[in-house]
């Protein structure tokens, strides 16, 4: 078994015309679920494709399971279940044929894992793939990746365009994959725009903005650190930890260091009417703004 990170990116970069991804440094430890999150065009799909060597980097090193492309390509790919954003080459194949093909190539084929995301959806087994609804196509692509019996699952927007029922079955499929009793060190990397997916199942968030990896954040730590305060009145001057002050009534403070902020408010005799956790989406937008301000060299930028 591989020791250390299962995925390791060192100084990896790729450019397409004006778009530049990287340089990216990223280590993913086995056993965890990582959500790759970021605005449209931030480089999520490119990053995932690099893990499959579908997009070779211009520079830097991509290493998986301790091996590298192209030398260890076959060995690496056997350990990955991959669900691309769009499947190419499937057009004329029926779900039945696809399943037979893929299960033939993967000795660890897991029929139950295939069925989890599809249960509850009527699949027309003999219709060509391209004639199926886009939601069904997505479900099939994800089901095939889940069932490959792999050590690593790489999914590009697995729940995009799904109805809420199919979506929760896909998440259950991911959960069954990671919590399988027989494979105790499985890892999942998935790109998504759905914050609910991130909150439910992602241990870490790889946050990409304009091709730059802002960091690999622990989902729970972000949620516990960022806090909203509703004080009786707006404080004068600077309050430690304060990232945003909305002084329209009701006054609201966003803090990324709630202990310090609470203490400062107490010291100024400002009562707090309410505190609450922030939505993940708001936290990420603050991180994005902090990055923009840091770039602009604004005095509000935090260390």
């Amino acid at each position, binding site marked *: 078994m591989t020791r250390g990170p299962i995925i390791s990116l060192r100084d990896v970069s790729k450019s397409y015309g004006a778009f530049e991804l990287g340089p990216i440094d990223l280590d993913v430890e086995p*056993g965890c679920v990582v959500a790759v999150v970021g605005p449209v065009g931030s480089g999520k799909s490119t990053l995932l494709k690099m893990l499959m060597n579908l997009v070779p980097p211009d520079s830097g090193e991509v290493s998986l399971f301790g091996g590298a492309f192209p030398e260890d390509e076959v060995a690496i790919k056997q350990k990955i279940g991959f669900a691309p954003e769009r499947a190419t080459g499937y057009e004329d194949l029926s779900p039945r044929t696809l399943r037979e093909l893929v299960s033939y190539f993967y000795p660890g084929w897991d029929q139950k894992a295939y069925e989890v995301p599809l249960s509850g959806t009527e699949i027309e087994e003999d219709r060509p793939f391209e004639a199926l609804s886009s939601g069904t196509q997505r479900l099939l692509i994800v089901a095939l990746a889940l069932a490959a019996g792999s050590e690593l699952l790489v999914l590009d927007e697995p729940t995009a365009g799904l109805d809420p029922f199919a979506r929760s079955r896909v*998440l*259950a499929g991911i959960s069954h994959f990671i919590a399988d009793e027989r494979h105790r060190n499985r890892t999942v990397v998935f790109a998504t725009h759905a914050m609910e997916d991130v909150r439910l199942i992602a241990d870490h968030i790889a946050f990409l903005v304009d091709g730059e990896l802002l960091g690999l954040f622990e989902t729970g730590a972000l949620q516990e650190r960022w806090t909203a305060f509703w004080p009786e009145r707006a404080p004068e001057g600077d309050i430690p930890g304060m990232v945003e002050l909305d002084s329209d009534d009701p006054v609201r403070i966003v803090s990324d260091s709630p202990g310090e902020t609470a203490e400062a408010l107490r010291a100024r005799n400002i009562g707090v009417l309410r505190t609450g956790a922030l939505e993940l989406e708001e936290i990420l937008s603050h991180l994005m703004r902090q990055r923009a301000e840091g770039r602009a060299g604004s005095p509000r930028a935090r260390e």
Partner: protein
Amino acid sequence: MSEKWYPRRGPHVPISLSMEDHRPMYRQIESQLRDFILSGALRPGTKLPTIRALARDASCSVITTQRAYRDLEEEGLILTRQGRGTVVAEITEEKLRARRHEAVKAAFAEAVGTGRRAGLTGDELHAVLDETLQGDQTETGGDRL
């Protein structure tokens, strides 16, 4: 996330994760299990699902359920024995009472805060409590706390 696709084996604890609640998923699992344990709904010695079974049931990650069990174990509410799984810890009546007392105290502290912000004095707060008690039809005889 309550639909089940696999037949379930072994113990089951009804955990439901909410998207309305902005706390991390492990905090939600912890507080639900804590409520079941402190209320006596899960008796000492009750076998809990494995972290993997619980993750599959709740559709969350293994690291999430691992963290929840670790925190509850540190609180002394559950016990994990190598090869024997996780069970609800033997909690003395005294400790249970203390934990329930803490919960009540925290609720009162919050109520007092609300009262203070509304400008109530201590006497007025007492009056509110008396009024609330009079309106309360529950007879507990005081033996729970």
